[in-house]
C-alpha cells in the first residue's frame, strides 16, 4: 500500500538537536538512583530496604551493608551498599539456595587466577575477540547467572546454576560514588573447588 507508506513522509528523521532533551532524560534516568545516594538519604533508603527484605545484615554501625531478597519469580536480588562482610553475604546466599564465593577487592586489584575451573570460557580465557564476547553474552551461563541490574544491585538467576556449581563473585572497589564497584561473576564447575582470593595488582 504505497500511498500509505508515503503519507507524511516529509516528516524528517530527528536531528541531534531534536533528541537532546530525550537523551538527557534517559541519562538522568540512568543515574537517578546514583544522585539520591547522599549520606542521609542512604540511611533512609537502607532502612526501607531492611524492613522489606528477608535477610538483611546489620553489622558494625547498624547500617545494612547489603540486602538479599528472594523475588517471587525465583530470582534473587543483592543490593550491595557497602563492601564488607563477604562471609555474611555468602551465608545469606546459601540460605537462599545459592552456593557462592564472594570477594571484596581494593581498588586496582583482582584475585590471582586461576582460582577454579569455569563452566564456560568467560573465565580463564583472556583475550576474547568481540565476536567471541558477542556470542558468549548470548550463550555463556556465567553471564545469565548473575547480572548487574542497577548501580548497587545485582540479580542472580538460580535457574542458570546447576547442582554443585559455585557462583563466584568478585567485587572491586571502583572509587567512584556513581559506580561504586565493578563485578566479575563466573560459575565454577561442579567438583572444582574455589581457591581463596589472593589479591594482586591490576591496571584495570
Amino acid at each position, binding site marked *: 500500500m504505497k500511498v500509505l507508506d508515503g503519507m507524511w513522509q516529509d516528516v524528517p528523521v530527528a536531528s541531534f538537536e531534536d533528541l537532546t532533551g530525550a*537523551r538527557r532524560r534517559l541519562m538522568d534516568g540512568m543515574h537517578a538512583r546514583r544522585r539520591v545516594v547522599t549520606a542521609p538519604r542512604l540511611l533512609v533508603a537502607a532502612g526501607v530496604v531492611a524492613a522489606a527484605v528477608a535477610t538483611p545484615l546489620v553489622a558494625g554501625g547498624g547500617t545494612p551493608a547489603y540486602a538479599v531478597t528472594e523475588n517471587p519469580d525465583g530470582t534473587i536480588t543483592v543490593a550491595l551498599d557497602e563492601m564488607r562482610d563477604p562471609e555474611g553475604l555468602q551465608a545469606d546466599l546459601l540460605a537462599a539456595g545459592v552456593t557462592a564465593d564472594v570477594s571484596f577487592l581494593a581498588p586496582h586489584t583482582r584475585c590471582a587466577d586461576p582460582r577454579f575451573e569455569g563452566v564456560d570460557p568467560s573465565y580463564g580465557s583472556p583475550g576474547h575477540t568481540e565476536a567471541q564476547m558477542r556470542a558468549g553474552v548470548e550463550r555463556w551461563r556465567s553471564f545469565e547467572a548473575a547480572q548487574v541490574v542497577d548501580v548497587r544491585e545485582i540479580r542472580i538467576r538460580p535457574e542458570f546454576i546447576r547442582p554443585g556449581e559455585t557462583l563466584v563473585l568478585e567485587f572491586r572497589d571502583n572509587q567512584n560514588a556513581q559506580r561504586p564497584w565493578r563485578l566479575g561473576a563466573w560459575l565454577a564447575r561442579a567438583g572444582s573447588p574455589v581457591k581463596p582470593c589472593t589479591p594482586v595488582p591490576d591496571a584495570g
Partner: protein
Amino acid sequence: MTTTREVIAADDATLIGRSLHEPEIFAVLFDRHAPLLHRYVTRRLGPGEAEDVVADTFLAAFQSRADYDRGRPDARPWLYGIASNMIGRRRRAEAALYRAYLRSGVHPGETAGAQVEDGVNTLAVNRPLARALLRLKRADRDVLLLVAWAGLTYQEVADALGIPPGTVASRLNRARAQIRQSLPEGEQS
C-alpha cells in the same frame, strides 16, 4: 564512557547485555534508534509529543533491559512495541492530530514547504487516509503503521506487540481493506 569501535559495531543484543554491567552503553542504543523512532512517533502524534514518547520509551527499555531476549540481535521490535504502548496512552493526541489535518491539510511535523510541490494531489490522498486512520481500531492501526511507517516485518510486529503472526496478518488485512475503501478511485494500490 568511551564509545569504542567494537561498541559501535556490536549488535543491539550485545549492547543490551553489556549495559547490564556498563549502563552508559545503553546510550549507544539510543543514538542508533532514536532518530527513526522519533520520526515514527512524530508522524503519529506530532512533534509536540514525540520527544516525551521517545524519552519514556528508552527509559522503560533501560529499566527492563535485564529481561530482553538476547537471542534477538535487532532491538527495534522491542523498542517499537514499548513505543506503541506509550502512543496508546496518548490516543486523544493521535486523534486530534488526524482531525487537525483534516481541517488544515498540514501535518505539524512536516518540513516547511513540502506541501507546495504537489499539495493538491497530496491532500486528495492524505485526507481520506487520515480519516480512515482515525476510524481504525487502535490495535489494527498499530499493526498497519508498524508495517507501513516503521518498516517492520510481520514477525517483527508480532514480536513487538506480543501477538501471534496470524493475528498480525488478520489485523493488517482488515486495516488495509478499510483504508482502500476510503481512497479515491485510482489510488487504491
